[in-house]
C-alpha cells in the first residue's frame, strides 16, 4: 500500500510540473509578446524595449521559466504589470477571504450531502428518493449565477434579510464576515451539494447490489441496519473520493461566485487580471489554483487507496 501511495504522490508531483510548464507556455503562445499585449496599439519601439528589459523578456524562454518557478517556490511571486504591486502582497490579502468562502461551503455541504445521499439510498424507489434525485439533478444543471441571482433577489432585495454584496473590510469581526458570506456560501454549497449527494447515493447503491448484501437481506436484517453496518463501510472509499473531488470542484466554483458577489478573494483577482491581460498575475494566481486542484485530486486518490481494503493488499 505504501508503494501505491508513494507512486501516486510522485505522479502528482509530475503532473504539477507539467501543469507549471503549460501555464508558463501560455505567454509563449501570445501573438507578439507580453510587451505588445500590455501596450496595445499605441506601442512605440522604446516603450516596448523598456518593458521587455523590465520583464527580462530578452532572456531565452527556459531561463525565464526556471526564474519564475524558482520565485514561486521561494515565495517571490513577481509584480503585477497593471499596478506594479507585488503579487505576493495581494495574494496574502485575498487568500484568507477565499479560504473562508470555500472552507465554510465545504463544512456545510459535506455532512449535508452524505446524509442526503444516504437517505435517498435508504428510501430507494420511494417518493422521497425521487424528490431528492430530481432536486439534485436540477441543482447540478443550473449555473451558479442563477442560484445566486435567485437568492439575492428574494433574500437580499425582497426580504432584505442579508446584504446582496459580500463586502468585507480588512480584518472584519466574525459576525460581519459571516453575514457577508451567507449568500456566497449558500450559492457554492448548492452547487457542490448536489454533485456529492448524487455520487454518495450511487456509491451506496452500487455496494447494495453485491452478493453479501443479498445475504444480509435474506438473513432478515432491516434496510437501515444493512446500509449503515454492511454497505456504508464498503462504500466509504468511493464516498471519500467523491468528497475530495468535489472540494477540487470548489476551486472552479469560487471563480463565478466571487465575481457575482464582488467578493475580494483570489478568484476575483484572477478574473480581473485576465480582463486586463496582466500576464504575470494570471500565471501565478492561475498556478496557485491549478496546484490546489491537482493536490486535491491526488488526495482523493490517496484517500481512496487508504480506505479500500482490497487496494491495501495488492496482489
Amino acid at each position, binding site marked *: 500500500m505504501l508503494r501505491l501511495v508513494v507512486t501516486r504522490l510522485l505522479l502528482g508531483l509530475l*503532473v504539477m510540473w*507539467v*501543469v507549471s510548464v*503549460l*501555464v508558463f507556455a*501560455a*505567454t509563449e*503562445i*501570445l*501573438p507578439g509578446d507580453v510587451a505588445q499585449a500590455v501596450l496595445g496599439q499605441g506601442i512605440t519601439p522604446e516603450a516596448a524595449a523598456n518593458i521587455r528589459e523590465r520583464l527580462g523578456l530578452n532572456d531565452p524562454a527556459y531561463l525565464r521559466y526556471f526564474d519564475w518557478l524558482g520565485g514561486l517556490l521561494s515565495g517571490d511571486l513577481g509584480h503585477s504589470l497593471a499596478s506594479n504591486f507585488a503579487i505576493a502582497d495581494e495574494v496574502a490579502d485575498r487568500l484568507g477571504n477565499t479560504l473562508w468562502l470555500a472552507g465554510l461551503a465545504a463544512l456545510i455541504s459535506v455532512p449535508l450531502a452524505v446524509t442526503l445521499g444516504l437517505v435517498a439510498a435508504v428510501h430507494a424507489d420511494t417518493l422521497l428518493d425521487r424528490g431528492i434525485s*430530481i432536486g439534485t*439533478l*436540477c441543482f*447540478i*444543471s*443550473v*449555473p*451558479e*449565477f*442563477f442560484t445566486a*441571482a*435567485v437568492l*439575492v*433577489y428574494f433574500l*437580499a*432585495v*425582497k426580504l432584505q434579510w442579508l446584504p*446582496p454584496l459580500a463586502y468585507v473590510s480588512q480584518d472584519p469581526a466574525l459576525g460581519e464576515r459571516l453575514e457577508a458570506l451567507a449568500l456566497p456560501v449558500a450559492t457554492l454549497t448548492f452547487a457542490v451539494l448536489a454533485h456529492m449527494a*448524487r*455520487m454518495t447515493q*450511487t456509491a451506496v447503491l*452500487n455496494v447494495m447490489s453485491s452478493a453479501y448484501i443479498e445475504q444480509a437481506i435474506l438473513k432478515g436484517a432491516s434496510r437501515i441496519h444493512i446500509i449503515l453496518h454492511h454497505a456504508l463501510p464498503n462504500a466509504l472509499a468511493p464516498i471519500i473520493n467523491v468528497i475530495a473531488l468535489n472540494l*477540487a470542484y470548489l*476551486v*472552479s466554483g469560487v*471563480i*463565478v461566485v466571487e*465575481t*457575482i458577489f464582488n467578493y475580494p478573494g483570489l478568484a476575483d483577482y*484572477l*478574473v480581473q*487580471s*485576465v*480582463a486586463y*491581460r496582466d*500576464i504575470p498575475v*494570471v*500565471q501565478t494566481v*492561475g498556478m496557485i*489554483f*491549478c496546484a490546489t*486542484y*491537482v493536490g486535491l*485530486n491526488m488526495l482523493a486518490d490517496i484517500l481512496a487507496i487508504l480506505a479500500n481494503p482490497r487496494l491495501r493488499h495488492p496482489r
Partner: protein
Amino acid sequence: MTDSANAEKSGFLARHPLTPTAITGIAIIGFWVVVALFGPLVAPYADSDIITDISFAPAGEIGLLGTDYLGRDVLSRIIYGARMTMGLALAATLLSFSTGITLGFTAAVLGGWTDSVLSRINDAIMAFPSIILALLVIAALGTSIPILVITVALIDATRVFRLSRVLALDVSVMDFVDAARARGEGLWWITFREILPNTVAPLTAEFGIRFTFAILFIAALSFLGLGVQPPTADWGSMVRENLQGLLFGSTAALLPAASVASLTVGINLIVDWFLKRLSGPVATEMMR
C-alpha cells in the same frame, strides 16, 4: 445499416416509454429550439435597439419583460440570446465530438505509441481545472467568438476522447471486428463501419452531457465578461450587464439566468432518462 439502426431505435422507445420527467425535458428543449430558430422573426425589437431612456423598467410597463440597463427590450434580447448561446454551444460540442471521437477511436484502434502519446496529452489537459484553462487561453489570446468556441471545444474534446477511446477498446476486441480485420478491411472501415455503430447509444448520452457543459461554460465565461462581448445579446453576458439592477428589484438579470437554467435542466432530464435505460458498465460510469 440505417434501417436496422432505425428499427432498434423505435424498439428502444417501445420498450422504454417516456416518463413525465422526460416529456417535460423534451418540451423545454423543443420550446427553446423553436425560439432560437424562429424567435428573431417575431421579436418585437432588434437585440441592440434602445427603445426607451428608462433603465430597468419593470416587466409589463415597457415591453413584455421590461427593459435592461440601457433601456433595451429584455424579451427581444432573450430571444436573440437563445440563438447566440445555443448556437455557440452547439458549434463547440460538434467540434469537440468530431475531434474527440476521431482521436479517441484512432488511439484505440492503432494502440501502441500513438495511443500513449494521445492519452498523455489528454491527461495533461485534463489535469487543469477547466475554467482556469479557459482563463489562461483567454488571457493569452484575448476574447473573440472563434477563440471562445475553440477553447470550450478543446476542454470538451478531452472528455469525449476518454470516453470514445474506452468504448472503442471494448468493441475492438469483439469477434466481428476480428472478422473485419481478417477480411482485410482498412482502418477507416473498421473505425466507422464496425466500431462507431456499436457505440452510438453511450455517445448520444455523452452528447447531451457535453452540450449542457458547453452551454454552462460559455454562459459562465460570458458572465465573467470574458466570453461574448457587448452589444451582442447572449444569456451569460445579459446576466452580467444587468446584475446591478437586481439590487433595485429588476428581473432583467434573473430572466436570462432562468433561461440558461431551464434549458440545461431540460437537457439533463432527458439524458438522465436515457442513461437509466442504457445497460452496462459504461452507463453506470457515466451516471456518476
